[in-house]
């Protein structure tokens, strides 16, 4: 695939993180030599044990962080030359534990639009709720009184309110039971297929990876190895741990 069709390109990226060693702050290299390409409308899973740097990697795509080395391209443009606010309106993100603002569900859905001096009609808000499987009467309810699974769905609807080109998902289902998790993943897959919204998903859950069934980057021990699908990634994952070969 040429760089032109790629939505995201990670070009020889490294991530450093400040840590404490014997009480003194030092810089530790978490990941290095990461090169990945994500096609427009495609899907990519970032799979690996906790603490491997998957989430740190994900945060580069909407520039919540910058890489310590290398560069990230979005639609052919270096992210450092891209307005970060416009970028984040095009590249949505769903966190592991969603934060809903302490207002109604409807106001939560309208927040991202309000920051751009736009409004969200009640009709559009209810349609978003419907898409994530929540009934209309949720629109006026206080967001922070909802259950964890309901909050995650509202957070997803809120991220979708901007009709993003791509959605970054950081363990989106880890706080949910398996049924709710599958519901969310299926919904994301439907969006991906029907509207071409690119999905980049961080997970350490095997069942999520299998359901996503897409090119998978194994992240472990400071390196990233790319596999064409979930099965081959899982096959390399012997003894429950992960043995990586240099990609």
């Amino acid at each position: 695939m040429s760089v032109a069709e790629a939505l995201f390109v990670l070009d020889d990226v490294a991530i450093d993180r400040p840590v404490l060693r014997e009480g003194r702050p030092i810089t530790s290299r978490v990941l290095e030599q990461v090169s990945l390409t994500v096609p427009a409308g495609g899907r990519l899973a970032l799979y690996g044990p906790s603490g491997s740097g998957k989430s740190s990697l994900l945060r580069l795509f909407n520039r919540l962080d910058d890489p310590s080395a290398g560069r990230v391209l979005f639609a052919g443009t270096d992210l450092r030359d891209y307005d970060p606010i416009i970028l984040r309106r095009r590249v949505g993100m769903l966190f592991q534990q969603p934060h809903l603002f302490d207002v109604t569900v409807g106001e939560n859905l309208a927040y991202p639009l309000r920051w751009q001096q736009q409004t969200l009609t009640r009709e559009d808000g209810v349609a978003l709720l419907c898409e994530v499987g929540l009934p209309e009467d949720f629109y006026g309810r206080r967001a922070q009184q909802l259950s964890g699974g309901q909050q995650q769905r509202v957070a997803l609807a809120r991220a979708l309110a901007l009709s993003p080109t791509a959605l970054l998902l950081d363990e989106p289902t880890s706080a949910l039971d398996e049924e709710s998790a599958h519901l969310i993943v299926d919904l994301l897959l439907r969006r991906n297929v029907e509207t071409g919204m690119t999905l980049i998903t961080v997970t350490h859950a095997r069942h999520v990876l299998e359901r996503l069934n897409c090119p998978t980057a194994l992240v472990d021990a400071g390196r990233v190895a790319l596999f064409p699908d979930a099965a081959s990634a899982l096959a390399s994952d012997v003894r429950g741990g992960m043995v990586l070969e240099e990609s």
Partner: protein
Amino acid sequence: MTETVDIRYFDLGIAALLLFASMALTWHLQLGVHRDLIIGGIRSFLQLMVMGYVLAYIIKDGAWYWVVLALMLMLGVAVHTAVGRTREAVVNKHTIYTVAIVSGSMLVLLFIAGAVLHLRPLYDPRYVLPIAGMIIGNAMTAATLAVTRLAGDLHARRREVETALALGASAAQAVHPLRRDALRTAILPSVNALLVVGVVSLPGMMTGQIIAGQDPTQAVRYQIMVMYMITAAATLTSIISTVMVIRLAFTPAHQLREASPTSTVG
């Protein structure tokens, strides 16, 4: 002017019995503050005695450089105290407090001395030093409240801020609820004081003037001016300090900086 009652050292000793009584009570209740009370009692005695003689000298001498020196000293101690009280990891807290407390309090002081009291000379120590003390003290408290609250929230409410950033909010939009809470925390004590003064509390400046024989109707005018100026100093200083904390907490690319390392290796 009517005769005032002079306080002798012997009388001060009697007054100190009140402090000893507080010490005995807190020791009995095992509050763990009796040591601080002893140190505080001694320090307040020494500091105020020295201040009394210093003020007497500066007022008598009347030279501008003594006033400037005294102001610098007061500002220095205020900044040092604010830095010491801030346990939160705040980048460049020394600079933040210096800029906020110095600019906030000196602007208000200049306004009071020039536009309200019409002092000639502008640095008249009999007015400038006591008033500066009140302004700087309140500016210091407000700045400390604003900075500690905001820095604490930037850590504790990181998820909220990053959620907003990830949804396309600017740093200013994302941090707005935290800044509002920090400023309210810093300014509310002044606002509350404005509401209850003269009903619940009779503030020190006014009571002092009344005891010294000043006409109470004049004394309250001074007190009203004092209330307005310390509210302004608290507001101005806390706004300046939060602006600086926020500028340092975010990158130009609207990213929330990591305050300090959170994980341990090796």
